[in-house]
Protein backbone atom coordinates (compact mmCIF):
# COMPACT_ATOMS: atom_id res chain seq x y z
CA UNK A 1 0.00 0.00 0.00
CA UNK A 2 1.46 3.40 -0.84
CA UNK A 3 1.83 6.11 1.77
CA UNK A 4 -0.71 8.44 0.18
CA UNK A 5 -3.46 5.95 0.84
CA UNK A 6 -2.76 5.83 4.56
CA UNK A 7 -4.90 8.22 6.61
CA UNK A 8 -3.24 9.57 9.75
CA UNK A 9 -4.59 9.08 13.27
CA UNK A 10 -6.16 12.56 13.47
CA UNK A 11 -8.11 11.98 10.26
CA UNK A 12 -9.38 8.64 11.52
CA UNK A 13 -10.46 10.14 14.87
CA UNK A 14 -12.27 13.03 13.16
CA UNK A 15 -14.00 10.64 10.81
CA UNK A 16 -15.18 8.43 13.68
CA UNK A 17 -16.58 11.49 15.45
CA UNK A 18 -18.54 12.35 12.31
CA UNK A 19 -19.79 8.78 11.97
CA UNK A 20 -20.83 8.72 15.62
CA UNK A 21 -22.72 11.99 15.32
CA UNK A 22 -24.54 10.89 12.17
CA UNK A 23 -25.33 7.49 13.67
CA UNK A 24 -26.79 9.09 16.80
CA UNK A 25 -28.90 11.50 14.75
CA UNK A 26 -30.27 8.65 12.65
CA UNK A 27 -30.93 6.36 15.63
CA UNK A 28 -28.08 3.97 14.82
CA UNK A 29 -25.27 2.61 17.00
CA UNK A 30 -21.65 2.19 16.01
CA UNK A 31 -19.67 -0.83 17.14
CA UNK A 32 -18.40 0.01 20.63
CA UNK A 33 -15.21 -1.99 20.20
CA UNK A 34 -12.96 1.03 19.65
CA UNK A 35 -10.07 -0.80 18.04
CA UNK A 36 -12.43 -2.56 15.66
CA UNK A 37 -14.27 0.63 14.70
CA UNK A 38 -10.96 2.43 14.21
CA UNK A 39 -9.86 -0.32 11.80
CA UNK A 40 -13.08 -0.04 9.82
CA UNK A 41 -12.94 3.76 9.73
CA UNK A 42 -9.37 3.60 8.46
CA UNK A 43 -10.38 1.10 5.77
CA UNK A 44 -13.20 3.40 4.68
CA UNK A 45 -10.85 6.39 4.39
CA UNK A 46 -8.35 4.32 2.40
CA UNK A 47 -11.14 3.34 0.04
CA UNK A 48 -12.30 6.94 -0.28
CA UNK A 49 -8.80 7.89 -1.44
CA UNK A 50 -8.53 4.92 -3.71
CA UNK A 51 -11.94 5.05 -5.37
CA UNK A 52 -13.35 8.49 -4.57
CA UNK A 53 -16.15 7.13 -2.41
CA UNK A 54 -16.51 5.37 0.94
CA UNK A 55 -16.71 1.83 -0.32
CA UNK A 56 -17.26 -0.91 2.28
CA UNK A 57 -13.84 -1.98 3.62
CA UNK A 58 -14.97 -5.61 3.78
CA UNK A 59 -16.08 -5.89 0.18
CA UNK A 60 -14.17 -5.84 -3.09
CA UNK A 61 -14.94 -2.64 -5.01
CA UNK A 62 -14.68 -2.60 -8.79
CA UNK A 63 -13.74 1.09 -8.83
CA UNK A 64 -16.79 2.16 -10.87
CA UNK A 65 -19.17 4.23 -8.79
CA UNK A 66 -22.25 2.93 -10.57
CA UNK A 67 -21.35 -0.70 -9.87
CA UNK A 68 -20.28 0.00 -6.28
CA UNK A 69 -23.21 2.30 -5.40
CA UNK A 70 -24.84 -0.34 -3.21
CA UNK A 71 -21.72 -0.88 -1.07
CA UNK A 72 -20.92 2.76 -0.34
CA UNK A 73 -21.16 3.12 3.44
CA UNK A 74 -23.84 3.07 4.77
CA UNK A 75 -24.67 0.33 2.29
CA UNK A 76 -28.07 -0.76 0.99
CA UNK A 77 -27.78 -3.90 3.12
CA UNK A 78 -27.17 -2.25 6.49
CA UNK A 79 -30.80 -2.05 7.61
CA UNK A 80 -31.85 -5.60 6.64
CA UNK A 81 -28.63 -7.00 8.16
CA UNK A 82 -29.16 -5.03 11.38
CA UNK A 83 -32.70 -6.37 11.59
CA UNK A 84 -31.72 -9.96 10.88
CA UNK A 85 -28.24 -10.30 12.42
CA UNK A 86 -27.86 -7.32 14.74
CA UNK A 87 -24.95 -5.93 12.74
CA UNK A 88 -24.17 -4.73 9.25
CA UNK A 89 -21.87 -6.87 7.09
CA UNK A 90 -18.62 -5.28 8.29
CA UNK A 91 -20.08 -4.68 11.80
CA UNK A 92 -19.45 -0.93 11.85
CA UNK A 93 -23.14 -0.56 12.73
CA UNK A 94 -24.63 -2.80 15.38
CA UNK A 95 -28.00 -3.22 17.04
CA UNK A 96 -28.62 -1.54 20.39
CA UNK A 97 -28.44 -4.92 22.19
CA UNK A 98 -24.99 -5.56 20.80
CA UNK A 99 -23.84 -1.95 21.39
CA UNK A 100 -24.83 -2.35 25.05
CA UNK A 101 -23.03 -5.66 25.32
CA UNK A 102 -26.26 -7.59 25.96
CA UNK A 103 -25.78 -9.75 22.91
CA UNK A 104 -22.75 -11.26 21.18
CA UNK A 105 -21.67 -10.17 17.72
CA UNK A 106 -21.72 -13.03 15.22
CA UNK A 107 -20.57 -13.16 11.57
CA UNK A 108 -23.00 -11.71 9.03
CA UNK A 109 -23.29 -13.63 5.76
CA UNK A 110 -23.07 -11.69 2.49
CA UNK A 111 -26.55 -10.91 1.14
CA UNK A 112 -25.33 -8.86 -1.80
CA UNK A 113 -26.04 -10.43 -5.16
CA UNK A 114 -22.95 -10.29 -7.44
CA UNK A 115 -23.36 -7.51 -10.02
CA UNK A 116 -23.48 -9.84 -13.01
CA UNK A 117 -26.29 -11.88 -11.44
CA UNK A 118 -28.54 -8.95 -10.54
CA UNK A 119 -31.74 -8.43 -12.46
CA UNK A 120 -33.58 -5.18 -12.97
CA UNK A 121 -36.04 -6.08 -10.22
CA UNK A 122 -33.26 -6.51 -7.65
CA UNK A 123 -32.09 -3.00 -8.37
CA UNK A 124 -35.30 -1.07 -8.73
CA UNK A 125 -38.63 -2.30 -7.23
CA UNK A 126 -41.62 -3.66 -9.09
CA UNK A 127 -42.91 -1.70 -12.06
CA UNK A 128 -46.50 -0.66 -11.51
CA UNK A 129 -46.31 2.54 -13.51
CA UNK A 130 -49.29 2.84 -15.79
CA UNK A 131 -51.67 1.36 -13.26
CA UNK A 132 -51.83 4.51 -11.11
CA UNK A 133 -51.70 8.21 -11.90
CA UNK A 134 -49.45 10.45 -9.79
CA UNK A 135 -48.86 14.19 -10.11
CA UNK A 136 -45.15 13.64 -9.40
CA UNK A 137 -42.97 10.51 -9.18
CA UNK A 138 -42.09 9.00 -5.79
CA UNK A 139 -38.36 8.50 -5.08
CA UNK A 140 -36.98 6.07 -2.52
CA UNK A 141 -33.63 6.34 -0.77
CA UNK A 142 -31.98 2.94 -1.22
CA UNK A 143 -30.04 3.35 2.03
CA UNK A 144 -32.75 4.26 4.52
CA UNK A 145 -36.07 3.95 2.68
CA UNK A 146 -37.01 7.65 2.85
CA UNK A 147 -39.74 8.42 0.32
CA UNK A 148 -40.50 11.74 -1.33
CA UNK A 149 -42.81 12.89 -4.10
CA UNK A 150 -41.11 15.43 -6.38
CA UNK A 151 -39.83 15.74 -9.93
CA UNK A 152 -36.28 14.64 -9.09
CA UNK A 153 -34.68 13.07 -6.01
CA UNK A 154 -33.05 15.49 -3.52
CA UNK A 155 -29.29 16.16 -3.80
CA UNK A 156 -28.85 14.49 -0.40
CA UNK A 157 -31.27 12.33 1.53
CA UNK A 158 -32.51 14.54 4.38
CA UNK A 159 -32.55 11.51 6.68
CA UNK A 160 -29.32 9.61 6.01
CA UNK A 161 -27.37 11.96 3.68
CA UNK A 162 -27.16 9.42 0.86
CA UNK A 163 -26.39 11.12 -2.47
CA UNK A 164 -28.92 11.68 -5.28
CA UNK A 165 -27.64 8.77 -7.37
CA UNK A 166 -28.60 6.35 -4.56
CA UNK A 167 -32.32 6.96 -5.02
CA UNK A 168 -34.58 4.79 -7.11
CA UNK A 169 -37.86 5.73 -8.71
CA UNK A 170 -40.33 3.93 -6.46
CA UNK A 171 -43.62 4.94 -8.05
Amino acid at each position, binding site marked *: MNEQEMPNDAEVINFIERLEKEARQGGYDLNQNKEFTR*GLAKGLLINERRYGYLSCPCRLAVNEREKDLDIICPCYYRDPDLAEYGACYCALYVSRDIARGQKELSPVPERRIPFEKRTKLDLTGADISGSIKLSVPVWRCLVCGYLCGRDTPPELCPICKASKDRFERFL
Partner: protein
Amino acid sequence: MNFEHVDGKDKGKITLYALSTCIWCKETKDLLSDLGAKYDYAYVDLLKGNDREVAIEQVKHYNPSCSFPTLIIGDKCIVGYKEKEIKEALKV
Protein backbone atom coordinates in the same frame (compact mmCIF):
# COMPACT_ATOMS: atom_id res chain seq x y z
CA MET B 1 -0.16 -14.93 -9.40
CA ASN B 2 2.08 -14.64 -6.36
CA PHE B 3 0.96 -15.14 -2.80
CA GLU B 4 2.56 -13.64 0.27
CA HIS B 5 3.95 -16.35 2.45
CA VAL B 6 3.73 -16.52 6.26
CA ASP B 7 6.00 -19.06 7.89
CA GLY B 8 4.92 -21.41 10.63
CA LYS B 9 4.09 -25.02 11.36
CA ASP B 10 2.98 -27.12 8.40
CA LYS B 11 -0.73 -27.84 8.94
CA GLY B 12 -1.44 -28.66 5.30
CA LYS B 13 -2.07 -26.25 2.49
CA ILE B 14 -3.73 -23.05 3.70
CA THR B 15 -4.61 -20.23 1.33
CA LEU B 16 -6.30 -17.01 2.40
CA TYR B 17 -7.93 -14.59 -0.02
CA ALA B 18 -8.31 -11.29 1.81
CA LEU B 19 -8.80 -7.54 1.44
CA SER B 20 -6.19 -5.17 2.87
CA THR B 21 -8.92 -2.90 4.32
CA CYS B 22 -11.08 -5.64 5.84
CA ILE B 23 -11.12 -6.05 9.60
CA TRP B 24 -12.51 -9.62 9.46
CA CYS B 25 -9.70 -10.59 7.09
CA LYS B 26 -7.24 -9.16 9.62
CA GLU B 27 -8.88 -11.19 12.41
CA THR B 28 -8.50 -14.31 10.26
CA LYS B 29 -4.82 -13.58 9.56
CA ASP B 30 -4.17 -12.92 13.24
CA LEU B 31 -5.87 -16.19 14.21
CA LEU B 32 -3.78 -18.20 11.72
CA SER B 33 -0.64 -16.52 13.03
CA ASP B 34 -1.67 -17.10 16.67
CA LEU B 35 -2.18 -20.77 15.84
CA GLY B 36 1.31 -20.80 14.37
CA ALA B 37 0.21 -22.12 11.00
CA LYS B 38 2.12 -21.71 7.76
CA TYR B 39 -0.08 -20.08 5.13
CA ASP B 40 -0.24 -18.11 1.91
CA TYR B 41 -2.38 -15.06 1.43
CA ALA B 42 -3.26 -12.49 -1.20
CA TYR B 43 -4.80 -9.04 -0.78
CA VAL B 44 -7.11 -9.17 -3.76
CA ASP B 45 -7.95 -5.43 -3.60
CA LEU B 46 -4.28 -4.59 -4.14
CA LEU B 47 -3.81 -6.89 -7.15
CA LYS B 48 -3.93 -5.41 -10.62
CA GLY B 49 -4.71 -6.62 -14.13
CA ASN B 50 -4.45 -10.31 -14.83
CA ASP B 51 -3.40 -11.25 -11.28
CA ARG B 52 -6.59 -9.70 -9.94
CA GLU B 53 -8.78 -11.53 -12.45
CA VAL B 54 -7.07 -14.84 -11.71
CA ALA B 55 -7.53 -14.32 -7.95
CA ILE B 56 -11.22 -13.41 -8.34
CA GLU B 57 -11.80 -16.54 -10.45
CA GLN B 58 -10.09 -18.64 -7.79
CA VAL B 59 -12.26 -17.15 -5.03
CA LYS B 60 -15.45 -17.62 -7.07
CA HIS B 61 -14.55 -21.25 -7.67
CA TYR B 62 -14.85 -21.87 -3.91
CA ASN B 63 -17.22 -19.07 -2.98
CA PRO B 64 -19.52 -17.82 -5.78
CA SER B 65 -20.45 -14.67 -3.85
CA CYS B 66 -16.75 -13.65 -3.96
CA SER B 67 -16.77 -12.34 -0.40
CA PHE B 68 -13.82 -12.03 1.95
CA PRO B 69 -12.13 -13.55 3.81
CA THR B 70 -12.25 -16.78 1.81
CA LEU B 71 -10.01 -19.32 3.48
CA ILE B 72 -9.06 -22.63 1.88
CA ILE B 73 -7.74 -25.30 4.26
CA GLY B 74 -6.96 -28.46 2.29
CA ASP B 75 -10.15 -28.95 0.29
CA LYS B 76 -12.36 -27.15 2.79
CA CYS B 77 -13.51 -23.59 2.18
CA ILE B 78 -14.43 -21.28 5.08
CA VAL B 79 -16.12 -17.99 4.19
CA GLY B 80 -16.00 -15.22 6.77
CA TYR B 81 -14.19 -15.11 10.10
CA LYS B 82 -15.44 -18.27 11.77
CA GLU B 83 -13.03 -18.97 14.58
CA LYS B 84 -14.51 -22.32 15.61
CA GLU B 85 -14.62 -23.70 12.09
CA ILE B 86 -11.08 -22.57 11.38
CA LYS B 87 -9.79 -24.23 14.56
CA GLU B 88 -11.68 -27.42 13.74
CA ALA B 89 -10.28 -27.51 10.22
CA LEU B 90 -6.78 -27.08 11.66
CA LYS B 91 -7.53 -29.71 14.32
CA VAL B 92 -6.65 -27.31 17.15
